[in-house]
């Protein structure tokens, strides 16, 4: 069963359009004809049980994997901005390099116009300026994740794809991360806002921070709408996203 959720009303054209994406690993179909759009300033949560295809979808959007079918459309990068930034689930950093060296290396590899300036901005945004010269191997898990996200943002992308960004963080670190990501998305288009697409198992975060939720199960997109609409689809009659999510999956046969 697929719920035809109402796509969020937006005056702006989509900055990312996913059209009929499919991915096959041998005999296993990881994604089946997934389609959705992302508009500027959105915080889109991708939720689903384990093995639903969340990581595969984000990897395809990030360009790490190629889809077996379908296309990902995005307008040309404006004003030298990157199109899609990406932060994998486990921090992907050089542990022998400092925070600053990691950021500078990727700014150069991304061919950012002013690498040093981008690094300074990112250190400021992520609150890592005081740890800039510390080697990554000496950082806590939370700070590593912040550097991981910062690397995804170093080219100032229009869309940031985050794979379970808060999974290794304690509640305080999670709150700080979402505060930071929310601020990115809330910036006006003129101030170069970044839409965020993230996968998570924390439905509380979806309820609190996401403007939109996409539900995947067995590679199929089952729901695309706001968290409130997902609660309604669960038909539980109370403000319980987790309960509504489980009920919705059960109703869809998952």
């Amino acid at each position, binding site marked *: 069963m697929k719920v035809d959720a109402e796509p969020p009303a937006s005056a702006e054209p989509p900055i990312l359009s996913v059209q009929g994406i499919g991915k096959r690993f041998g005999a296993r179909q990881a994604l089946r004809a997934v389609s959705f759009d992302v508009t500027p300033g959105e915080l889109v949560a991708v939720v689903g049980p384990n093995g639903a295809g969340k990581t595969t979808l984000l990897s395809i959007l990030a*360009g790490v994997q190629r889809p077996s079918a379908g296309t990902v459309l995005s307008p040309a990068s404006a004003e030298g901005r990157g199109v899609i930034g990406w932060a994998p689930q486990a921090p992907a950093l050089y542990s022998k390099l400092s925070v600053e060296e990691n950021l500078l290396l990727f700014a150069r590899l*991304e061919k950012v116009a002013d690498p040093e300036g981008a690094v300074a901005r990112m250190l400021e945004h992520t609150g890592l300026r005081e740890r800039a010269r510390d*080697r990554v191997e000496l950082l806590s898990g939370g700070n590593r994740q912040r550097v991981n996200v910062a690397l995804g943002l170093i080219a100032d992308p229009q869309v940031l794809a985050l794979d379970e960004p808060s999974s290794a963080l304690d509640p305080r670190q999670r709150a700080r991360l979402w505060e930071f990501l929310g601020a990115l998305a809330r910036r006006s288009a003129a101030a170069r806002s970044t839409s965020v697409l993230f996968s998570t198992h924390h439905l509380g975060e979806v309820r609190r921070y996401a403007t939109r939720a996409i539900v995947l199960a067995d590679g199929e997109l089952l729901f695309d709408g706001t968290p409130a609409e997902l609660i309604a689809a669960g038909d539980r009659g109370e403000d319980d996203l987790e309960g509504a999510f489980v009920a919705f999956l059960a109703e869809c046969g998952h």
Partner: protein
Amino acid sequence: MRWLLLKDLLILRRSRLLLAMLIVYPVALALLIGLAISRSPSRPRVAVVDETPPGQTVQVGSERVQVSQYAQQLFSQVVTVREPSRARAVQQVQQGRVLAAVVIPRDLAARLSSSIAPARLEVIYNGDALEQSLVRSTLNSALAQANLGFSEQIQQAAAKAIDLLLAGGNVEILGAPPNLIGLSQIPPALHEILARQPPGPERRQLERISSFAGFAAQNLSLSKTVLQTVSQPIQVKSTLLHGRRTPLNTFAVVVAVSVSLMFIGVLLAAGGVALEREERVLVRLVRGLVTRERLLVEKALLSAACSFVVAFAMLAGVSAFVALDWSRVGLWLAALAFGAVAFGALGVAIGALAREVRAASLLAFLLSLPLAFLALVPAGSVAVGIYDAIGVVSFAFPFKASLEALDAAVNGASPSIGSPLVHLAGLMVLFAALARVGLRRVD
């Protein structure tokens, strides 16, 4: 690629233990291999109990050969530890102070003089199977050398005795008559007598004696040559088929440098590629920032440059102690460069297939060490089938080709440098392709 290279150099600089290990370990290993190859086998310590009475001789015709000369021949092949008795020698062997003991029995001279009972030595040894094999082969060789030396002396004495029988003269044996007539002098002397002898039975008798003396002298003269042949039936003439002879010490230098080149090149490249995957940065890099091919080329070149520098420094350093021909330095550089890149390509293939640094390093070690030893196995030392299999393995990896290229560059050895360089270039392409396949999946 520039930024990746700088990043890798920075990481390498910060991994001081790894850096030290990468340089110290192969250099130490190379020096050990070099020493092992260049040093001739040391003479074994052997206890010798000489029970023969002093001054005892073996009588050969009118000549006497000192039995002590046999012991001297034997002593020249081993480090001798003289022991007064068999019991004491056995104790020395049991305590491991000597590898073996040789007892020269009291009746050696009597047995050598007798044509009935052969002379026998007693060899006592101990230890495990390997040690026993070493002792047996070393002592057999030493005893064979001593036997040969001693038989040459006996043959010389016998030849002198034959000369005396043929030519006549004074025999130095107590009681022997002076100025004996030689066999070869009998026929002419008898001819003079026969000329004056009337025909009859006495003359016929003398004629028979004269023909026998002539026949005996002729054959005794031949027996000298026969004696020489028997004492050393086969002599060896050495012919080197191609190339010029490589001195053992410069070949050892080539082996040592090749081992260093291989270890640094393979380990660094394998570790470098595996580290990208282990740190999970590979997925970030290959999403459009760096192509997989560029990444592999960067790692292979970096490791090749490091191994090249260390190997060349080793060659230059060693040339202070071993005479190397610096006029061939261009060829050295070519051989080192091709070898370094081929090892780098092998390393990136290992790194791409192994997926994590520990597994890559272990695989690199497990592969490199046997490759070096297999390439040094001489033809004829193992069964033909095994040697063919070794040949195939050595052909499929860069060590042997690199060794041949460097040997040709440094020593002018055969085959000439061209074919190993072409071989190395082929292996570079092969391993680079293998690495690319290994890097197809990045997660």
